[in-house]
Structure formats: structure tokens, C-alpha cells
């Protein structure tokens, strides 16, 4: 293995989008990244708890950071944008303030844990671009994606609020476009909705708002000629795939477009068989499209 990172897939990947977790593990293994699972990690605080009780949510994120630090890894890698948002937020607080860290450690200390403030949080595009790097990914590529028109979908919490991350422009992100085009020799379509909200967090309370968001994003991608949508977030992937049928009806559309987690697309490009990437678990099956494109 070339390097190790602490791995936190998040609740969505442990419950619904297990395919993304499966694909991420395969991709990392192939690229020489050792994923160290966090013992007993629970929820990061989620968006729901963040709204209901921000202090509890931040402490839960702090606990996850402490578990990551205890593995000896300095990077905590997650495949969920909301987890990234919560954890980056908590890290910026606990890594930079001794007072905040001390308050957290009073709570963690009851279970013999502590946090020294050494962990950085990363997502899949950052892992591939900054840690694995162009040369290693290129060397691993076995299949040409040239025929596949990919619509990158970034989602909100990996890029906004911009001050949290500093990795890319929060309104005009490019990391997935670069990965697909430069690292994987694929083709991307540019479409205005690629950095908008997927509607996941209003699905339970404002269903129609979510359907309109999903329908708008997907309709925009289809209008620009996309074959599939690719996202680095498990929650965005679930919203766009599982709720696609109702969303398309809501915007009076008549289309269907497969949704891939970024790990699945990278997996395909580096030669991992589709069945090992969980591609048969999708509600909108990508199998017909991938067969047609020779993937």
C-alpha cells in the first residue's frame, strides 16, 4: 500500500448506498490506498441533528475525528458530502481552538478518548487528485471512457461554504470534470445545474421541492446530451437514483438517466468488473448503457 487514510463511509453508505462503499473499497485497493475503518464510529451528527441540536452534532463529529486520529492516519476520507461538511466544520473548530478542543475532550474523556486536533478531512475527488495523483490513476486505467458522456454532479456540501474547503470554486467546481477528462480520458458535459442542490435533505419534509430539484438537475443534464450523471456523494446518488421516477413526473419529463457514484466510474475505468462495483443495485439500471458503450 502506498499510504493509508482513515475511512468513514457515513450512514447512507452503511444503509442504502452500500454499492458506493463497495466500489470505493475496490478502487482504493487497486490504487494502493489502505482504508482504515473506524472502530465503533457512529453518525457524524447528520444534517437533521445539526439543525435540532448543533452542539450534539459537533460533538459527534468530534468523536469521529478522535477515532480517525487514533488510527494514526492524518487524513479522514469520506464518500458522503454531508459527512464531509460536518467533519470539515468540526475539524476547523477543534483543530484551531484549544478551548473548543478542551470542551470536546471533557466529553470524550468519559470514554477514555481524546482529540489532539491533527486530522484533515478529504473527499474522493481530493483523494484521487491530491493524494493518489495523476500518474498513479493513469497507470491504473484499463478501459477507455471516450464514448461515455458524463454529467458531473458536485452537490452542495463538498464545495460550500467555500471558506471551509478552499479546494475549488464553490459555484464553478471543476474537480470531477478534470478527473473524468484528464485522468480517465472521458468526456464531460457542462450544464448549469451541476453545482446545485440534489434535494436530499428536504425529501422527508418538502417532497415536492426535492422532486423539483432532482428533476431540474437531471433534465438539465439530459438536455446537454449526458449519458449518465456522476457524483462523489452517496446521498446525492440516492436522491437522484431512487427518487428519479417521481421527480421526472413532477417536472413533466420523459427520460431516464443512470446515476453513478464517482467510485463506480473510476472502478469501471481501472478495469474492475461491474458486479464488484454494485452496479446491479441501482433503481435506474446503468447496465444497458454500459453494455452499449462497451464498458
Amino acid at each position, binding site marked *: 500500500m502506498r499510504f493509508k487514510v482513515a475511512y468513514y463511509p457515513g*450512514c*447512507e453508505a*452503511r*444503509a*442504502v*448506498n*452500500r*454499492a458506493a462503499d463497495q466500489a470505493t473499497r475496490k478502487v482504493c485497493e487497486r490504487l494502493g490506498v489502505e482504508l482504515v475503518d473506524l*472502530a*465503533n*464510529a*457512529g*453518525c457524524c451528527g*447528520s444534517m*437533521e*441533528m445539526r439543525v435540532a*441540536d448543533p*452542539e*450534539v452534532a459537533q*460533538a*459527534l463529529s468530534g*468523536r469521529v475525528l478522535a477515532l480517525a486520529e487514533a488510527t494514526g492516519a492524518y487524513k479522514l476520507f469520506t464518500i458522503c458530502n454531508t459527512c464531509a461538511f460536518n467533519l470539515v466544520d468540526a475539524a476547523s473548530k477543534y483543530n484551531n481552538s484549544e478551548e473548543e478542543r478542551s*470542551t470536546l475532550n*471533557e*466529553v*470524550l474523556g*468519559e*470514554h477514555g478518548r481524546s482529540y489532539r486536533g491533527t486530522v484533515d478531512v478529504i473527499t474522493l475527488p481530493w483523494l484521487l487528485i491530491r493524494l493518489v495523483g495523476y500518474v498513479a490513476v493513469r497507470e491504473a486505467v484499463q478501459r477507455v471512457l471516450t464514448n461515455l458522456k458524463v454529467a458531473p454532479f458536485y452537490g452542495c456540501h463538498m464545495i460550500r461554504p467555500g471558506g471551509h474547503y478552499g479546494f475549488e470554486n464553490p459555484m464553478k467546481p471543476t474537480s470531477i470534470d478534470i478527473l473524468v477528462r484528464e485522468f480517465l480520458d472521458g468526456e464531460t458535459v457542462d450544464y448549469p445545474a451541476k453545482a446545485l442542490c440534489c434535494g436530499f435533505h428536504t425529501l*422527508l*419534509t418538502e417532497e415536492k421541492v426535492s422532486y423539483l430539484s432532482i428533476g431540474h438537475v437531471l433534465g438539465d443534464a439530459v438536455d446537454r446530451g449526458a449519458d449518465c450523471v456522476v457524483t462523489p456523494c452517496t446521498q446525492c446518488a440516492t436522491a437522484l437514483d*431512487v*427518487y428519479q421516477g*417521481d421527480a421526472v413526473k413532477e417536472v413533466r419529463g420523459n427520460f431516464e438517466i443512470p446515476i453513478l457514484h464517482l467510485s463506480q466510474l473510476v472502478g469501471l475505468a481501472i478495469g474492475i468488473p461491474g458486479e464488484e462495483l454494485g452496479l*446491479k*443495485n*441501482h*433503481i435506474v439500471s446503468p447496465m444497458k448503457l454500459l453494455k452499449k458503450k462497451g464498458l
Partner: protein
Amino acid sequence: MESGDIDPVVLMRKVKGLKVVADLPRGLRMLARGTLPLKQPANPGLDEIKKTIEAVKRKK
């Protein structure tokens, strides 16, 4: 948070109440595709997670 993780089925049931019945067809499709667990296994850190939440609330 009964399992230490967010359990989507429990969350839906609690937020939507009886209206969750309308989501049954979707749930069945997800079950058929293997994307929805019938029951989420409890996180091994559940007890610690609950006590962490209690400790934060106590210190307020």
C-alpha cells in the same frame, strides 16, 4: 439514532408518520434491488454514542 447511525427507515417513519405508506412501492423496489436493509444492525459503539449525546446535553 436508535442504532447509532441514521436509520433511513426509522427516520422516515418518525418524520412522515402514517404518510410513510405512500413510500411502500419505492421501498419494495429498493428491497428488490438490495439497496434497503430490512433492519439496520446496531452500531457496536451505540452505548458510547448515546452517552456522548447525554454528556453534551448535561454540560449545557
